[in-house]
């Protein structure tokens, strides 16, 4: 395989891992005002992701950095075209991050309520906007051969774009609820098991509509028709989604979480495989698409970076796995009593 194609799939993989890991953090944040009835519930939810979210968020920084390194032209065009939504995402992430740290620092209902609202918005907005952005990328973005953007932020809110946003929100809610069934105990755990089941009921029809709508709104399926073996990606995504419900019912919490993780991976790769070789297609003229081949860095940079990430990323996965393993047990009262707990 050419270097550019390898990088294309690595690029997709990094975004997918970001959504897989930080996805459940977003999900917990979205469920936070609804599922967290008492202050203790809320604290269990925050501490369930407390040790992990920071490391998870770096997958975004890495996905961004790798886009910059391997496909500078995509980095430049994508982020300047999507200026306003990206800024909204970044501000939301700022608030999410500090809100978790700051919420417990002062014992005052007004103080807590303020940060609680920001935890929700800081999770909901990025989830929704990432979904809208990716759906729009799947459908193509109006920019010309100079990288000049001809749309505006409101025009991103097409029916297909919004559908993508809703899909992301629901996927992350399921994923977050699944993580909470691992980390919560007793009545709270039951509550999240029910939330996961209900979310699933809504997610399935939305996912089906999204798969069908993609046929009309995008040209993603062209690649699938060319190489039908790719349909395996969709099969895996759908099977994983079905397993998520099955394991939830069997109270196999870890397996249910893996299943929702795989669903997210499958969803992203459904798009990635359909896009190939375009990373950022132009809706104005397919000749202006930014692809792995016309927007990549020089072969030397691609080679050096491949060397770097093939060493660093496995190491990252190793120590993050260690960290996940260290914090896999349900949250106990002792955990909540720690000075450092959220």
């Amino acid at each position, binding site marked *: 395989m050419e270097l550019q194609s390898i990088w294309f799939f690595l690029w997709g993989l990094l975004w997918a891992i970001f959504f897989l890991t930080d996805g459940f953090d977003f999900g917990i944040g979205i469920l936070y005002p609804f599922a967290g009835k008492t202050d203790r519930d809320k604290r269990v939810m925050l501490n369930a992701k407390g040790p992990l979210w920071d490391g998870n*968020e770096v997958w975004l920084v890495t996905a961004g950095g790798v*886009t910059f390194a391997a496909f500078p032209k995509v980095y430049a065009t994508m982020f300047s075209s999507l200026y306003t939504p990206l800024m909204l995402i970044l501000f939301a992430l700022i608030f999410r991050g500090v809100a978790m740290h700051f919420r417990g620092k002062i014992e005052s209902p007004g103080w807590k309520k303020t940060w609680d609202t920001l935890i929700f918005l800081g999770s909901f907005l990025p989830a929704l906007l990432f979904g809208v952005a990716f759906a729009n990328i799947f459908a193509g973005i109006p920019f010309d051969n100079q990288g000049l953007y001809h749309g505006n932020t409101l025009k991103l809110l097409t029916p297909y774009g919004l559908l993508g946003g809703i899909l992301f929100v629901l996927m992350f809610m399921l994923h977050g609820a699944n993580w909470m069934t691992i980390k919560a105990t007793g009545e709270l755990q039951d509550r999240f098991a029910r939330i996961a089941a209900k979310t699933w009921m809504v997610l399935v029809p939305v996912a089906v509509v999204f798969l069908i709508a993609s046929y009309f709104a995008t040209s993603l399926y062209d690649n699938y028709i060319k190489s039908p073996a790719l349909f395996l990606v969709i099969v895996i995504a759908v099977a994983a989604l079905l397993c998520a419900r099955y394991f939830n019912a069997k109270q196999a919490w870890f397996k249910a979480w893996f299943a929702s993780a795989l669903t997210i991976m499958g969803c992203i790769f459904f798009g990635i495989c359909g896009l190939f070789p375009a990373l950022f297609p132009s809706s104005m003229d397919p000749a202006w698409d930014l692809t792995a081949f016309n927007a990549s*860095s020089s072969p030397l940079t691609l080679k*050096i970076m491949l060397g770097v990430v093939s060493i660093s990323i496995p190491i990252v996965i190793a120590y993050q796995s260690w960290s996940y393993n260290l914090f896999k047990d349900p949250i106990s009262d002792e955990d909540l009593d720690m*000075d450092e707990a959220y």
Partner: protein
Amino acid sequence: MDPVFLSRLQFAAATMFHFLFVPLTLGLSILIAYMETKYAWSGDKNYLRMTKFWGKLFLINFALGVVTGITLEFQFGTNWSRYSEYVGDVFGSLLAIEASAAFFLESTFIGIWIFGWNKISAKAHAGVMWVVAIAGNFSAVWILIANGFMQHPVGYDIRNGRAELTDFMAVVTNKHGLLEIIHVVPASLLLGAFFVMGISAYHLLKKQHTEIFLKSFRIALVVGLVSSLTLGFTGDMHGVNVSKHQPAKLAAMESHWETRTQAPIVMFAIPDETQEKNKIEIGSIPGVLSFLGFHDFNAEVVGLRDIPKEDRPPVLPTFVGFRTMVGLGTLFILLMIYGWIRRNKLLESPNFLKIMLWSIPLPYIAMEMGWVVSEVGRQPWIVYNLMRTSDAVSPIAGTQVMVSLTAFILVYGLLGAVGFYLIAKSVKEGPEAVTA
């Protein structure tokens, strides 16, 4: 509305705000790792209380540093897309390496450090803090190498209408970047040390928790002494390098208008950029600028008048920034030497303690001014002699930037106030009794 000007303002606001938190993260993490190591090996609970107290302040600061850093990475794409396209082949990889090899480590291990007290042994926990500290500084190293490329581009060829990488090792070992590293890392240590000494002084003046804060103060004093002296040396090395590669920056740093040998420095001046001279000049010492720049009293120093107007950096901020940085650097050395002499009589030195308490903002000012010299002094180039800042901006509407700039100022202002309040609150509460 001019997107170049607004984007510059936005980037300056975002970096300078981010850089209020980064140096403390870098410096304080090393001090805390040392304190926790002392605890893990001696079992002395005072060191645990120290670790927890400084750790609490560290975490508030860390949270703000991380979240404000993420916006910076993406601003290259959002606001400086022409730049990203033109030098992404070289510059992008440095940011990607920073994220994948350093920032990941720091962020994952800080989670383990915060929540892992009961999950791993005391020694392993101290080890985790060392990982955080080293990874954080390693992160800074990659960012400074990236900045070094903007200051003094090496290891590339212009091909296919952009700068393409030809020699990765040349980029990584770029002298300008290395000089920044040996200046910024000790500066961060100095800032961390002043932070610890200033807050310790607050409690020592009130004669409370004296055991903990005397220990903290003395640890920080050693670090402060060594790093302030180091900064003098590395600053000088940096100056020589700037004279060689960035004559316009040197001239702006000193508000030096006329090309001449035995170039003087002036004690006090008010630069006048339209008249191309200094309005007021007091106390000029001949030869010193030649000596500082080239280690030769007779060396010729190019004046701003011999540099085309369109290639001159803004003189006033560069000049004031440089004066302030050097002045404060000298003060730091004097304070640390005096502190060293009084190290065993700290409780009997209330005036010195008061000075140290009120000195907390000074290293912050010195570091921000250092960046003003470095970055404003580099203008009008975004990459020195290779790409102009005005050619680097994204093809976006000024109004878009205006809106985001306003949001940056509001949000950062708010966060800064909250962060300051929380740190001050924790400082006043003092160290908690440790039961563990």
